[in-house]
């Protein structure tokens, strides 16, 4: 049996897990959020336990994910995963219970339990007044550019390219944003690890031999590294967003070019970088916040060729447009 309190950005999660394998799974996920935040924290309780039968499927009226469906209930939320693992949230007490069904002897805790833990975190962050953003951010001389792209779309590589040029970063794919009482947008870091593909060594030799590290997931070649281990003193905990840069693939192998986004495209870029539940109550504040943030950003689309980073000054086109505002 294990009890521990994890701090994950603006929330604290008190975990109670009678089973050691389940505790390890939870700790592995919640322990990623190492960027310190100051109190107060929104306090969440999480019980993780074995259940005797797989949970019944949910319809997904609140959220539909590839491996998980979430329904809104009178008390809060209920979610189920493909493995039969399930979660129930009681909003009044801010308490979650994750149940994991029986497994064959020696079998690992199903990977999709990570989706339930992610649901706990995303829900808590939103309740704490923040919008979780699937984006990186780089900062230099008053410029803070949010970097967006689908998973595998190049956020980490572009973040690394900026960092090598002297920029600092809030992270490569997880941020929290909000608009303060003074209407100024704020972005905060959650993790300072990034998942780098070993092939990035051909452009960024200082990353060294990443293949000596374990893969961060069975479905990818990428390895988890701490940004400061490769590029010391390059991480920050907060920034004031001034730009959004959306990364797109280009067929022009060695080229990186920038095209301005209009106001609608800027808003669309931000809306596509967050999960918006299908219920008005949680969706409305997300839309309000991102619409307010979008109004204050300049936006650019960066088309990146497959070998663009081989050019030493490849970032010059995008740095030039960012300098125009910063």
């Amino acid at each position, binding site marked *: 049996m294990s009890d521990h309190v994890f701090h994950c950005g603006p929330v604290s999660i008190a975990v109670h897990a009678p089973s050691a394998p389940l505790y390890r799974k939870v700790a592995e996920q919640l322990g990623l959020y190492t960027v310190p935040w100051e109190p107060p924290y929104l306090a969440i309780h999480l019980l993780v336990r074995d259940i005797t039968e797989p949970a019944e499927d949910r319809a997904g009226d609140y*959220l*539909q994910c590839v491996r998980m469906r979430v329904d809104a209930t009178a008390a809060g939320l209920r979610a189920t995963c493909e493995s039969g693992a399930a979660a129930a949230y009681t909003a009044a007490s801010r308490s979650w219970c994750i149940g994991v069904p029986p497994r064959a002897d020696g079998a690992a805790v199903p990977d999709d339990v990570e989706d339930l833990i992610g649901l706990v975190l995303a829900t808590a962050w939103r309740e704490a007044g923040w919008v979780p953003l699937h984006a990186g951010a780089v900062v230099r001389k008053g410029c803070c550019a949010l970097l967006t792209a689908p998973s595998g779309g190049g956020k980490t590589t572009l973040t690394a390219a900026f960092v090598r040029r002297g920029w600092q970063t809030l992270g490569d794919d997880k941020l929290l944003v909000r608009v303060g009482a003074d209407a100024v947008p704020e972005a905060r870091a959650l993790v300072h690890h990034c998942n780098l593909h070993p092939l990035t060594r051909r452009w960024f030799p200082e990353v060294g031999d990443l293949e000596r590290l374990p893969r961060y997931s069975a479905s990818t070649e990428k390895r988890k590294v701490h940004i400061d281990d490769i590029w010391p003193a390059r991480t920050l905990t907060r920034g004031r967003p001034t730009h959004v840069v959306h990364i797109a693939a280009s067929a022009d192998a060695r080229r990186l070019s920038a095209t301005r986004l209009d106001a609608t495209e800027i808003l669309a870029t931000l809306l596509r970088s967050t999960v918006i539940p*299908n*219920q*008005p109550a949680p969706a409305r504040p997300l839309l309000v916040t991102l619409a307010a943030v979008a109004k204050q950003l300049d936006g650019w689309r960066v088309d990146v060729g497959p070998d663009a980073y081989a050019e030493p000054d490849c970032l010059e086109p995008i740095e030039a447009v960012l300098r125009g505002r910063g």
Partner: protein
Amino acid sequence: MSNGQLPQEPLSLRPDVVVAVLENEAVLLDLETKYFYSVNATGWAIVQLFENGATAEQVRTQCREWGAPPTDADAIAAMIDVLARDRLVVAGQPASQGNVALKGAWSTPVIEKHKEPLQRVMISAFDPTMPLAE
């Protein structure tokens, strides 16, 4: 609704259409279809009329009182048609009551529907995007 006839019954904003107001403009997100729409100040004022429940004729009358010239009649009808055709407004009880004021001078109402809807199925509770191949 696109048969040239505007709906006659009172219409109100559908509950799962959420709105963000920015100064005098607004963004509408339809949580059912995941399309979002941008409206200018006059468009937002028209949407607010439907928030309070209104017929198409009542909206046209109010627009004239706000200073709409006869040349904007088609634009007003086109906006109402988009709202009704896309079921952003439907017959039903309004969510709120009250007077609606047009902020600033009248301008031709504009509603812009974004080309692509937002993601309906997410990777996870944090990641809305479908991954690209490595």
